[in-house]
């Protein structure tokens, strides 16, 4: 039984079939890179996993738990979805930090709100909040933001914002952390600092799905690479297989274009 199993996911917006028939599996501790040209459906797939889009067909399973089944209305209830979302974390291209909160508050907020649902929250309020704050501080230190905890997002660089966003997602301990082009809004220098953080997470065997246009990074960090094209998985395999020995014409063409543009 795979850690994550995605079966025959389909999604269309109006007339456009964005995802045609997507199936793949991944194991705990794996890092999956998703590459492909813009509009190939990578982001939509990630959004489906995070229940920001509802697939028109297919199933998503985690272990033996069915998270989503287009044929089973019980898996589509709003309340259920909220809980299932927590299996996944999502880091956005443009961070989406909450501007009115400090870096630390951004990391703590969702955890605090969840803690309120605990039955012992009222009696142990002080201690629970203290713990949440300590963990949030620990994560921000891990992200190299020890001096920035009390800064507001507008006082931080893009790279710092993205690292706060990563800490915010990590603080909910998702089973799989997803990145939607995490460096596309950053200049090359800031890109480096964010990629370094993601690489460190990979070294700690964090299970991750990374949608990216950074080919070198996708290849280095991943244990598995998916090349998507026109709503389909065109090629899937180890980084060596996909990057050095692609079988599909489309993959070769994409990688060639990429290399010739980056000389």
């Amino acid at each position, binding site marked *: 039984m795979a850690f994550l199993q995605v079966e025959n996911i389909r999604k269309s917006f109006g007339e456009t079939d964005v995802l045609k028939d997507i199936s793949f599996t991944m194991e705990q501790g794996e890092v999956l890179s998703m590459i492909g040209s813009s509009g190939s459906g990578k982001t939509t797939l990630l959004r489906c996993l*995070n*229940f*920001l889009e509802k697939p028109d067909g297919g199933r998503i399973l985690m272990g033996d738990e069915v998270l989503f089944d287009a044929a089973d209305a019980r898996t589509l209830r709003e309340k259920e979805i*909220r*809980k299932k*979302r*927590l299996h*996944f*974390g*999502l880091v*956005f291209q*443009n961070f*989406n*930090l*909450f*501007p*009115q*909160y400090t870096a630390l508050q951004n990391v703590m*907020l*969702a955890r605090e*709100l*969840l803690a309120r649902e605990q039955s012992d929250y009222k009696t142990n309020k002080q201690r629970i909040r203290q713990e949440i704050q300590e963990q949030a501080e620990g994560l921000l230190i891990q992200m190299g933001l020890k001096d920035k905890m009390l800064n*507001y*997002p*507008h006082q931080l660089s893009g790279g710092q914002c993205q690292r706060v966003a990563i800490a*915010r*997602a990590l603080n*909910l301990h998702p089973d799989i952390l997803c990145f939607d082009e995490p460096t596309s809004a950053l200049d090359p220098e800031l890109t480096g600092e964010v990629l370094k953080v993601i690489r460190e997470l990979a070294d700690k065997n964090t299970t991750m799905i990374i949608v990216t246009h950074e080919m070198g990074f996708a290849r280095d960090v991943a244990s598995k690479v998916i090349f998507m094209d026109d709503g389909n998985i065109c090629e899937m395999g180890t980084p060596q297989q996909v990057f050095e020995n692609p079988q599909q014409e489309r993959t070769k063409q994409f990688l060639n274009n990429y290399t010739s543009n980056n000389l």
Partner: protein
Amino acid sequence: MQELLQQIAEQLPIVIRSLNEGFGQTLRLFFVTLAGALPLGLVISFGSMSRFKPLKWLTRMFVGIIRGTPLMIQLLIFFYFPGLVLKQNIWGSGEAGRFTAAAIAFIINYACYFSEIYRGGIQGIPVGQEEAGLVLGMTPGQIFFRVKLMQMIKRIVPPISNEIITLVKDTSLARIISLQEIIWAGQAFMKGSQGISGAIWPLFFTGVYYLVWNGVLSFLLGRLEKKLDYFR
């Protein structure tokens, strides 16, 4: 010239007392309008953003009519329509009746303006804020109150301030149904009141009241705007 100044000095205590009284009514209309229109505007804005199409279009049409016609006409219609057309004086008599009619017309008119400002404030928040809340497991209520509300308030303070300043001056329109606000009080001295007649300066002097009150409001609203400057 000296004679005129002397005359004004003699009239001043009487005029000031009268203008103060009128300005009291002006302030009452101002505060009652705000107290009614600020919350009603939020209700109307939810209507105009409703996913239920008929409600949405009905609300937007209503807002369009109110915003597209002069407040003065609305005041006249609200005040005279029940009595003269329906033959039923629902407002009651005297100054209290005029105030009720004026307050309701003002509340509805301003609520429509506020509703459009609220709508802009809510719809202007990037969709990513809601999505970030969702993937962090927040409920829709938590997303509205913990994520969106402050951002909305920050966005609407400048345009709402504008409307509030305009409202101060718009209260004078209630003169058209003889509400005894400050313009009415000043004008009385032209026609003759308390032994003073043919005096135009009291009417001009009312401008000072508006100016001072708007100065105070601008200062307070500016402070509020600054307070919200801690984030962007």
